[in-house]
């Protein structure tokens, strides 16, 4: 039997301010009565689908991650599942006792002591008083704030506050658990306790839906991942497939922003020399088939060519090229003088081409900075810093913080008789 069934569910919300006083609503009410009624399925002005025709089924004991950019509808789905809001279209069913590790401190009252809040919050989360009596000691031990248990929680530090909240919520013993970005609570010691608790829950066969921006966590815990964007399911499947797809999606979006930013900066710079004698017309970023592309996969043969136009004759110009990561790290830079490639003179239009060999940059967004200099590289004739390309993350690739994916050949020479594997 499925633990969770989500059948073509849609939920709409409204943007902007809305009426919530009688004074505004009474005239509105009458005008609505006169006007024709709206169907449940249609969008009125200012409305949008926060969740649009989402369909998934989760089997008992499965651990499923939901990822997606902000505003994708992740939290709305959790709210729909927990029953706080109801869908406009579609049906959903949850089989088994549901608990949510969401906003674990929402039920706390600052004036009450830790002890009183454990009972209050526990019952809010659906526990019986007797159940809490039984688990009380465990909860206090888990939270690690025994000495402050009879202090009003308003005197707690924010860490203690959320630790207590998590401790209560973690002891609910659900059959279906919804988790929304709460695992990053407390100090390192507490976090490892949380991780242990999560493991325990995983092993006990609880069905878990995990919403997080922490991709590493999703990768480690989930058997299946659902990628959402703008209320719709973009992709679902094993983490190794969905996560790289998501990373590419994010990078692609960021690439546009990056490009815009660079273009803006370029505009500011260009004003300096209007009467440029050399103009860089275009920079082409291409693969080995000379196909101009925006995104490349790792290992592609990579060529950059620079179209220029010299308005007068220039002797011994120097071309330079720089590849910069989005965060400003310069990944490589070189110029024709450095590489002892001499260009006697340029006049009119032409193209300079650089072959960079196999692309071994790590997935991410990169900018290309091309420039033409005078002989001594003191004065630039032209600088162009607007071209952007993007290296795709590959399915099942491990995440990396490195700049380069260097092909590395490992060998080992045993020097002692000690056992090494």
């Amino acid at each position, binding site marked *: 039997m499925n633990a969770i069934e989500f059948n073509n569910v849609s939920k709409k919300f409204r943007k902007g301010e809305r009426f*919530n006083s*009688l004074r505004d609503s009474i005239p509105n009410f009458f005008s609505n009565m006169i006007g024709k009624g709206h169907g449940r399925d249609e969008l009125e002005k200012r409305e949008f689908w926060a969740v649009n025709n989402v369909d998934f089924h989760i089997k008992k004991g499965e651990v499923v991650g939901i990822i997606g950019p902000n505003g994708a509808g992740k939290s709305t789905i959790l709210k729909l599942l927990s029953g*706080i809001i109801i869908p406009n279209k579609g049906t959903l069913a949850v089989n088994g006792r549901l608990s949510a590790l969401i906003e674990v401190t929402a*039920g706390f009252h600052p004036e009450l002591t830790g002890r009183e809040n454990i009972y209050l919050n526990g*019952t809010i989360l659906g526990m019986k*008083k007797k159940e809490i009596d039984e688990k009380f000691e465990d909860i206090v031990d888990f939270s690690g704030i025994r000495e402050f248990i009879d202090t009003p929680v308003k005197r707690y530090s924010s860490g203690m506050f959320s630790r207590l909240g998590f401790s209560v919520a973690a002891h609910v013993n659900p059959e279906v658990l919804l988790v929304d970005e709460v695992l990053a609570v407390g100090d390192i010691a507490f976090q490892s306790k949380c991780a242990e608790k999560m493991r325990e829950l995983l092993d006990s066969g609880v069905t878990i839906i995990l919403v997080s921006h922490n991709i590493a966590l999703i990768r480690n815990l989930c058997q299946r991942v659902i990628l959402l964007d703008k209320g719709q399911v973009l992709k679902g499947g094993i983490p190794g497939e969905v996560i790289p797809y998501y990373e590419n999606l994010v990078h692609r979006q960021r690439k546009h922003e990056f490009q815009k930013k660079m273009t803006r900066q370029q505009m500011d710079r260009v004003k300096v020399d209007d009467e440029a004698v050399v103009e860089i017309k275009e920079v082409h970023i291409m693969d080995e088939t000379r196909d101009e592309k925006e995104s490349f996969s790792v290992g592609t043969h990579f060529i950059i060519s620079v179209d220029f136009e010299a308005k007068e004759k220039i002797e011994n110009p120097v071309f330079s090229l720089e590849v910069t990561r989005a965060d400003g790290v310069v990944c490589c830079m070189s110029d024709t003088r450095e590489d002892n490639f001499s260009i006697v003179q340029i006049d009119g239009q032409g193209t300079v081409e650089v072959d960079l060999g196999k692309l071994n940059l790590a997935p991410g967004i990169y900018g290309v900075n091309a420039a033409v200099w005078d002989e001594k590289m003191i004065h630039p004739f032209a600088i162009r810093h607007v071209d952007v390309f993007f290296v795709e993350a590959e399915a099942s690739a491990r995440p990396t913080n490195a700049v380069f994916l260097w092909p590395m050949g490992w060998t080992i020479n045993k020097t002692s008789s000690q056992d090494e594997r």
Partner: protein
Amino acid sequence: MLKKVFQYRDLLFMLTLRDIRIRYKQAAMGFIWALFMPIVAVCAGILIKYAMANVSGTTIDLLEVVSISVKVLPWTFFISSIRFSVQSLVGNSSLVTKIYFPNAVLPLASTLACLFDFAIAIIVLAVLLTVAQLGVSIYLLWLPVLIIFLFLFTAGLGLLLAAGNLFFRDIKYVVQTMLTFGIFFVPVFYSVDQFGKWSVFLLANPVGSILEAINSVVVLQQMPDMGWFGYAGASSVFMFLIGLRIFCEKEPLFAENI
């Protein structure tokens, strides 16, 4: 609808306890707080009675003071319950929007917490009346039933207004105004007999007929008017059910409209 609330009875209990604790925890007056409003109201009532007696050239007797005190307690229970209930959903918006539980427990807990204050005040008044050797009779057995009626009516109205205030925030102000001047429209300081045939309008308000019945069984030591008693009972149960029903019907819309 009631089943769901019953399932969460432990939560209802905890929330009631929370409301009571918060009210008494930082209050310098402690339990005197429960008596404060009734005492002020009784003083106001005596003042008005005194003025009326002056005009008509009579004096006030003890029975009239007792009558005022007896009716003031349920009245203060009613108005403080409504006052807390109206705010109960909006004041706990983080719970309403973030955690699923039958939201009806919030206004119900507010009403129950006021019932606790009411109980304290009743005990104090009972002691006073016993000392004054007044008010003990077989007819007192009607009192619990009347208090149940009042509770049901108050809880039902509280549910309705709490839900209303969630959608329209100005309901709170309407309610506050009504509660401030309500005491003049309800037979607390006076008795409905003084209005002759117009008394029907005062008794049509279930709170009015309940207060009159309470006055009959406690102070006058006689059977309540069975017609009005039946009316009060029926309208209280009706109010509770309709309040709960509308509340539960609108409940799925709470989180996104709050």
